[in-house]
């Protein structure tokens, strides 16, 4: 028997079960996806596969067999030898799994030595993961590499292992869309080449759907559904994956067409034992049976999966049965509400627009940014940006990491110091520093920050936080109202932030931003730190608040699907400049800026070239670069109508478009 076989794996931390009776098999060359909300036990399973548990934890039962070797039965020395010979693990955060004080090359050398090979292979390895100038990279320390580069180094170390079992724990979380795509492509190639059993852990259903042959859905440490990726992620038989899918924004689906449905409640923590199905408290279909007895795994008819047409099913490795199992008393009843993007089948009750392009009444500009420039020392973070936000409009701001999104947002809020350029609100200039703005202006512009853990003062209760905000912003509502509007239970008012979950904190932060009835709320990646299901709830809240008050948003995210979901118009930022802005649909689908094309995945970066300071900043990597023009002169702003402006030398007709929804499963 080759490949990986897990039987009845259970892991407990301090006696509390975190993973319970998980079994699955992965054939060599096959990729198995493990999905689930945060805290469901994905990482725990992943670590257990290498025979490792975190401190305080223990594998309480089960067998892990890799190519016939019973891993857990090995003596310590044998386990080490097996790890050295057959295992490779790519951890979630590359920066954490590289020793910060050791050169990358040295670390790879050690990985090679462990396999009895030597350092001469280092450059070759780095080249395999497509890192430029491998020799220079090898001499660097981890912190001198970007996140994507670090991740590639970790993958290179995994490659050096030529493993039989490869575990990838959230290998792309926290990476830019473009970088993520490269990494995934790399993994895809390697999978075929290594012929190893691959376990891919992720909470990104999209990604798992694209990469995996089979998927296991973990909930509260149990595998609630398991089967071919295409089937499980399209026609889940269990209500949990169905709910996860319903809460995940996708490119091309907006809040007006496909409102997200968050899963209520939160997953049980280890030790929180339930008599019945652990999902029952959150399940819309749960009945007395579900609450009373835990369901046993049962097979689902294969036919369901095959029935989905028009979608390429990933090649299934030979020898693996397309077995589909689910642990549910009522399998299949909770189908995904809207399986097809167009036309929408069901509309939420509150809204009526049915078109793709939302009918935003043309209103006057609320905020105008002209030639805004902000520097940090010598770094130009924002470089002559122009942006208009109209009343009641959600403007999404996207761009790769470091493109200046946060700086722009902070400049609007009056937190980014001084610099050239003007910002006007209702036609009146806003002072660059918030403390110099008048109280009315301060009330008008509020902000929701990225990190929910830092944005609330940990020493005040939610009530105090909201009351202070209401008082100093001249708001009329009391904290209880604010909290209720933000979907927070009343008891949370008297809790300090450290007692709150990430989602609750972000809701409190949103409530605070709305305490003074703002005209504009700047949201800097408000959901990036949140789990899918929580993210859905927060997005929903933002949507509600926007509709209720007609507030404008400047909404920042690196996740295009999220931006596309919420935004009426989208601005694309690149190296401190706004290279494109326009109605959301047009920007995402094109014709759009070559850089936007790169972001939405319809293009690949071009060969790197040199650009002068006066040229288009994107010319360096632009696949459609016009030699002698793009790299020397600044691109003109081309208006494509409906306020869609693209800064590019290319003729509008030659601008790239997005070909269908190829990246969507």
């Amino acid at each position, binding site marked *: 028997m080759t490949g990986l076989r897990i039987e009845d794996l259970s892991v407990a931390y301090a006696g509390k079960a975190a993973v319970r009776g998980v079994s699955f098999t992965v054939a060599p060359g096959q990729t198995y996806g493990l999905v689930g909300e945060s805290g469901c036990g994905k990482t725990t399973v992943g670590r257990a596969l290498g025979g490792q548990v975190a401190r305080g934890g223990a594998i309480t039962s089960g067998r892990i067999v890799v190519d016939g070797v019973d891993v857990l039965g090995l003596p310590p020395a044998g386990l080490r*030898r097996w790890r050295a010979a057959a295992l490779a693990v790519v*951890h979630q955060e590359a920066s954490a799994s590289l020793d910060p004080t*050791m050169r990358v090359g040295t670390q790879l050398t*050690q990985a090679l030595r462990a396999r009895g090979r030597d350092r001469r292979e280092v450059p070759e390895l780095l080249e395999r993961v497509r890192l430029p100038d491998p020799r220079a990279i090898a001499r660097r320390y981890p912190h001198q590499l970007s996140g994507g580069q670090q991740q590639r180094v*970790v993958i290179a170390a995994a490659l050096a292992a030529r493993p039989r079992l490869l575990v990838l724990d959230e290998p792309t979380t926290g990476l830019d869309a473009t970088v993520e795509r490269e990494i995934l492509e790399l993994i895809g190639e390697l999978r075929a080449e290594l012929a190893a059993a691959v376990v891919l852990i992720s909470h990104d259903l999209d990604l798992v759907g694209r990469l995996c042959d089979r998927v296991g859905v973990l909930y509260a440490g149990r595998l609630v559904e398991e089967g071919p990726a295409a089937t499980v992620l399209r026609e889940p038989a269990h209500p949990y994956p169905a709910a996860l899918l319903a809460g995940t924004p996708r490119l091309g689906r907006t809040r007006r067409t496909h409102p997200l449905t968050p899963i209520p409640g939160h997953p049980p923590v280890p030790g929180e034992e339930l008599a019945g199905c652990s999902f029952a408290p959150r399940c819309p279909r749960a009945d007395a049976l579900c609450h009373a007895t835990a369901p046993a795994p049962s097979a689902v008819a294969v036919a369901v999966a095959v029935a989905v047409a028009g979608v390429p099913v990933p090649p299934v490795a030979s020898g693996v049965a397309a077995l589909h199992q689910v642990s549910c008393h009522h399998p299949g009843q909770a189908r995904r509400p809207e399986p097809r993007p167009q036309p929408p089948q069901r509309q939420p009750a509150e809204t009526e627009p049915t078109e793709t392009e939302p009918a935003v009444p043309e209103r006057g500009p609320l905020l105008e940014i002209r030639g805004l420039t902000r520097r940090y020392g010598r770094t130009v973070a924002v470089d002559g940006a122009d942006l208009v936000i109209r009343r009641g409009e959600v403007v999404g701001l996207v761009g790769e990491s470091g493109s200046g999104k946060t700086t722009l947002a902070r400049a609007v809020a009056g937190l980014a110091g001084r610099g050239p350029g003007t910002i006007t609100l209702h036609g009146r200039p806003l002072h660059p520093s918030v403390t110099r703005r008048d109280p009315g202006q301060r009330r008008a512009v509020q902000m929701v920050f990225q990190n929910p853990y830092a944005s609330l003062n940990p020493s005040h209760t939610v009530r105090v936080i909201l009351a202070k905000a209401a008082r100093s912003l001249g708001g009329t509502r009391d904290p209880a109202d604010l909290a209720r509007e933000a979907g927070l239970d009343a008891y949370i008012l008297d809790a300090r932030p450290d007692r709150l979950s990430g989602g609750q904190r972000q809701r409190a932060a949103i409530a605070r931003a709305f305490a003074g009835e703002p005209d504009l709320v700047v949201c800097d990646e408000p959901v990036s730190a949140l789990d899918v299901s929580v993210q859905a709830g927060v997005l929903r809240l933002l949507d509600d608040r926007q509709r209720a008050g007609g507030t404008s948003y400047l909404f920042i995210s690196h996740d295009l699907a999220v931006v596309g979901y919420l935004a009426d118009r989208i601005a694309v930022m690149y190296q401190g400049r706004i290279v494109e802005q326009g109605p959301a649909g047009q920007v995402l689908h094109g014709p759009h800026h070559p850089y936007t094309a790169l972001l939405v995945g319809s293009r690949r970066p071009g060969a790197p070239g040199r650009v002068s300071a006066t040229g288009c900043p994107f010319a360096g990597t632009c696949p459609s670069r016009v030699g002698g023009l793009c790299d020397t002169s600044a691109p003109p702003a081309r208006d494509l109508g409906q306020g869609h402006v693209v800064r590019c030398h290319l003729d509008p007709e030659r601008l790239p478009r997005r070909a269908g929804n190829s990246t969507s499963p």
Partner: protein
Amino acid sequence: MRFLLRRLVAVPLTLLGVSVLVFVTTELVPGDVARTILGREASAESVARLRSQLGLDAPLPERYADWLGGFLTGRWGESYTLGVPVRDLVLDRLAASMLLAALAFALLVPVAVGLGLVAGVNHDRPLDRLVSVSGLALGATPEFVTGVVLLVVFAVRLRWFPSSAQAPDGSSLLVRLGHLALPALSLVLLCTGYVARHVRAGAVVAIESAYAGAAELRGLTRWQVVRRHVLRNSTIAATSALGVQLQFLLGGLVTVELLFNHPGIGALLLSSAVDKDLPTLQATAMVLGLLYMVIVLAADVAYRVLDPRIRLGAAS
């Protein structure tokens, strides 16, 4: 580099401030160095004569200016009380203290790092608790207690080591180190706990880190993981603690030098302060201050050199 430059500029400024402070405070201390030199039985006239001989009659600013000018040009004057050139005195004493401090430090680093690592690797186990608590307790016991116990046991009872830190003139390095062993040891006992605690904290973080876990999953033994990854990361974390400890070591020198009869700079500081021997006191304070700042700076630089994240921070 800019950081280093700024700090280096601050050094003479701080020293200048210290010298003014020393001058003014010493002036305020009651007592009279001339009386100290001549003893209480000397007549008032003799004392007055000596005062004017020593130039103590001049107004304070003038004396300060004189002293500063002399100090900067290398003329550090003569000790009022001992009548020997201050520069030789201070530098000799400094050299003696440095030898002791260096030995103590050389012992301290491996011992503390070793114990810290052992504790960190076994954290939350009995061994860890043993190391942590005993380190704490030793660090909490004044060095004049541990020192005396060491003396009684090893010098008086067992006679393994001499009781005095001073070796006879012209003895070999080994003999000299033998004389310094007990005082160094008492300093080490004083400081080990503190440094070991910092190393331990660093080691705990390192051993629980993802890179240590990853290394283990690559098939490395615990020992290999500790040697390759934990050691360096935990010592880096403890560098600033070592810097603090070096300062502490200097402070401990006063008592240890007294106890082990080691004519070092700590003892000199105390006696010159008590006797109001201003030239000696000033020079001692300046030299110690300089040393102190150099140590802090060195610890910072060491931290930067050891930790590539800071050293090369700007490069990325």
